[in-house]
């Protein structure tokens, strides 16, 4: 019959005698590490959302006591009324948690760890112990960042981009030790990403199973590979910058202090030299996983596989030479602005290629609207809006009025929520049965998708209008400005939509948690997918395979004419298939 049956005897053959602590706490199993990242980052996603709700309360109802705000200390919200100093902590920490401790670890920490070995037919990562340290280093970073919410003077106050000198000088920001804790936490997180990236790159290069050539890699693995290269090269820059900032804060150095020969713009160059590749770290894995899901849901090979790979590589390369578009208004030489405008415009091209190829994949397909597919289509539809709004700010003259306004807030949320988070909702639902052996509830998954799509757009689309009107970011009380007073009803509308959006996410949280125990038992290969991970038991045992599987074809052979079914797993041997050469490196 199929390759699934052939692989079945391998299932459960592994005897696992590790203690509970080695198995679930200080685990070196890439799957457990991925799941550890999953629970921790979902917690931070929830926390980041809670902070966002407080921001929205203040913007929708400035100066009114926040329901439940009474539990906050006097220094943050006396009588539930948010103070300006607490508000800037909220915007700082919302951005920080979402970017560094929710989206990035969800995409990379969870899925690079979980998927890479399973999808390339490896037993584990190349360096399992380094992998364990990668998780615990991120965990320590998260703990430090979380703790910074509770120290005197509260958390960091200079925005998630931490522009010096505001971030460096407590006398100017009013911040306390929370500001230093931010820097320390980021250094720990940087260490985690560097260790992780090293591992992903090494594993993909060396540990592919026989027959898994570069151009038979699923696009999720390609995307995670390019992401890992970006991470390996970008995170050291952030860590270095964070260490400089820490020295500035505690040792009194003057890297960013012009009065003593320092340079204010140095921070921005360092931060965005990291920060723009980071933007692609936050979207490429989503693009890769969406490619897998769209092909599966369309029951068709991915359209233009090679174009998709080259587009990923192109984004990975161009991502390094666009950082200055964050600095068009910074006082940087305007001629540099011209250069960065051109590179930024050009990076729209590989993104467009990807969107058209996803559409090409759906064209003449036999679409299955399972929950992962719905979220993948949602990703494409919303990412397009975020990508197109990027063209406005790439054009330097147009950036002048919209820079640092809600137009940018809308853009980043269309990319990070509409893009990355929809991809994650799809990916989590898709690989949930592989991770936990149970399915998430289909009906509640669909309800969650439609409510999220609706309230996401009601929340973030009007922000474009606010930004066109000139509404600045990170202002505590827009009604201070006469020209913003007429926009207050819109701010209130956005706030109500945001509350509904947050409430809709509780459906996902409940579905995720309750399905762990009460979800329908997952059949083998529930989505009728071609990936190697589905040839194993769900969840797969420690070490994954007794004998490495053999790969005979690319990952997207859906509706192939050779077989009756509309899918053809990578490891299923047809009579016409020849045995491939040995593994690239005998690393097993």
């Amino acid at each position, binding site marked *: 019959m199929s390759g699934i049956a052939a692989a079945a005897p391998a299932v459960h053959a592994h005897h696992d005698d590790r203690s509970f602590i080695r198995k679930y706490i200080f685990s070196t199993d890439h799957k457990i590490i991925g799941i550890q990242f999953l629970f921790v980052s979902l917690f931070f996603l929830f926390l980041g959302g809670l902070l966002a709700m407080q921001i929205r309360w203040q913007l929708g109802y400035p100066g009114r006591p926040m329901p439940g705000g009474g539990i906050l200390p006097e220094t943050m919200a006396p009588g539930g009324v948010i103070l300006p100093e607490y508000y*800037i902590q909220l915007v700082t920490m919302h951005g920080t948690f979402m970017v560094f401790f929710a989206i990035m670890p969800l995409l990379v920490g969870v899925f690079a760890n979980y998927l890479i070995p399973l999808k390339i037919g490896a037993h584990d990562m190349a360096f399992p112990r380094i992998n364990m340290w990668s998780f615990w280093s991120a965990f320590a970073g998260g703990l430090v960042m979380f703790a910074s919410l509770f120290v005197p003077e509260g958390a960091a106050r200079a*925005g998630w981009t931490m522009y010096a000198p505001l971030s460096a000088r407590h006398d100017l920001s009013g911040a306390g030790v929370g500001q230093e804790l931010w820097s320390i936490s980021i250094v720990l997180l940087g260490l985690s990403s560097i260790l992780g990236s090293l591992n992903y790159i090494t594993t993909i290069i060396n540990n592919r199973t026989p027959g898994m050539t570069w151009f038979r890699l699923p696009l999720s693995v390609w995307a995670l590979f390019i992401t890992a290269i970006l991470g390996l090269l970008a995170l050291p820059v952030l860590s270095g910058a964070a260490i400089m900032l820490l020295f500035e804060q505690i040792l009194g150095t003057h890297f960013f202090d012009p009065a003593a020969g320092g340079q*204010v713009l140095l921070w921005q160059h360092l931060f965005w030299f990291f920060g723009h590749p980071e933007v692609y770290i936050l979207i490429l894995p989503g693009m890769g996983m969406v490619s897998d899901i769209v092909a599966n849901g369309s029951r068709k090979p991915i359209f233009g596989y090679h174009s998709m790979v080259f587009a990923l590589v192109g984004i990975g390369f161009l991502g390094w030479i666009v950082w200055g578009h964050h600095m068009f208004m910074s006082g940087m030489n305007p001629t540099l602005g011209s250069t960065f405008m051109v590179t930024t415009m050009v990076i729209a091209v590989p993104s467009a290629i990807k969107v058209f190829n996803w559409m090409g994949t759906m064209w*003449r397909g036999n679409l299955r609207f399972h929950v992962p597919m719905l979220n993948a289509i949602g990703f494409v539809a919303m990412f397009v809006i975020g990508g197109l709004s990027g063209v406005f700010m790439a054009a*330097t003259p147009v950036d002048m009025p919209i820079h640092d306004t809600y137009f940018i807030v809308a853009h980043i949320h269309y990319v990070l929520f509409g893009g990355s988070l929809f991809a994650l909702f799809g990916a989590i639902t898709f690989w949930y049965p592989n991770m936990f052996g149970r399915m998430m509830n289909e009906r509640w998954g669909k309800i969650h998708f439609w409510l999220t799509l609706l309230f996401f757009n009601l929340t973030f689309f009007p922000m474009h209008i606010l930004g066109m009107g000139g509404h600045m970011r990170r202002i505590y009380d827009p009604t201070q400005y006469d020209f913003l007073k007429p926009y207050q009803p819109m701010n209130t509308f956005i706030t109500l939509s945001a509350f509904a959006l947050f409430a809709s996410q509780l459906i996902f949280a409940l579905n995720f948690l309750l399905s762990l125990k009460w979800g329908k038992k997952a059949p083998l290969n529930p989505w009728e997918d071609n990936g190697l991970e589905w040839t194993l038991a769900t969840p797969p045992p420690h070490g994954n395979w007794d004998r490495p599987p053999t790969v005979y074809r690319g990952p997207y052979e859906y509706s192939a004419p050779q077989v009756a079914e509309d899918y053809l797993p990578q490891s299923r041997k047809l009579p016409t298939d020849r045995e491939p050469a040995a593994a690239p490196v005998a690393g097993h």
Partner: protein
Amino acid sequence: MSWWLPLQGSTFAPQIDGLFLAILIITGVAFVIVETGLIWFVFKYRGRPGRKGHYTHGNAKAEVVWTAIPAVTVVALGLVSNHYWKEIKGRDSIPADAYPIGIHAKQFEWQVTYPGPDGQLGTADDFTVRNQLHVPVGRNIVVVLTSEDVIHSFWVPVLRLKQDAVPGLTIRAWFQATVPGQYELGCAELCGMGHYRMRARVFVHTAAEYDAWAHQQAQGGAS
């Protein structure tokens, strides 16, 4: 509430808004193609039992078309944008006859220094007014931006002009106001807990009105 851009109050505001509109149309076309395509495919190719998808791995011609069209479009957009960018923000774009006004930003106020009767900044007849920017209509103005403490950003929506004020740097930016009236100047870069109230009034006067105001201020400042 406006669903569109604010009043066009400077010479380059119509150019910037025109470019905004052009990009809106181009991206609007792309948006409609992609979203209607997606919705159409979702209905047309919805799965039916017992059917398979069309087995194809792609089409080189299609790839070339949808690579080339966006590439040409964005490069053209870049060239057009760069033309205006150089005119507005280029270092040598500042008109030689521009009337200088010094703006020193500090937490959380704008100290605006006027050149006095001699039309020169940095001379004895300069005078400084807090949180009020007065300019004559129809005359080129160059603001000389400095900062006392942290990064601030000079932002006047009706002028479409935004420029950071950075400690340690002296940054010049020019504009010519075209519509007399009272507007607002805000800080667009997070500069601390008072960021939200770092606000100034902008007065665009007729030439005669401005001269009278400046004269009166110079008298007051000189005494």
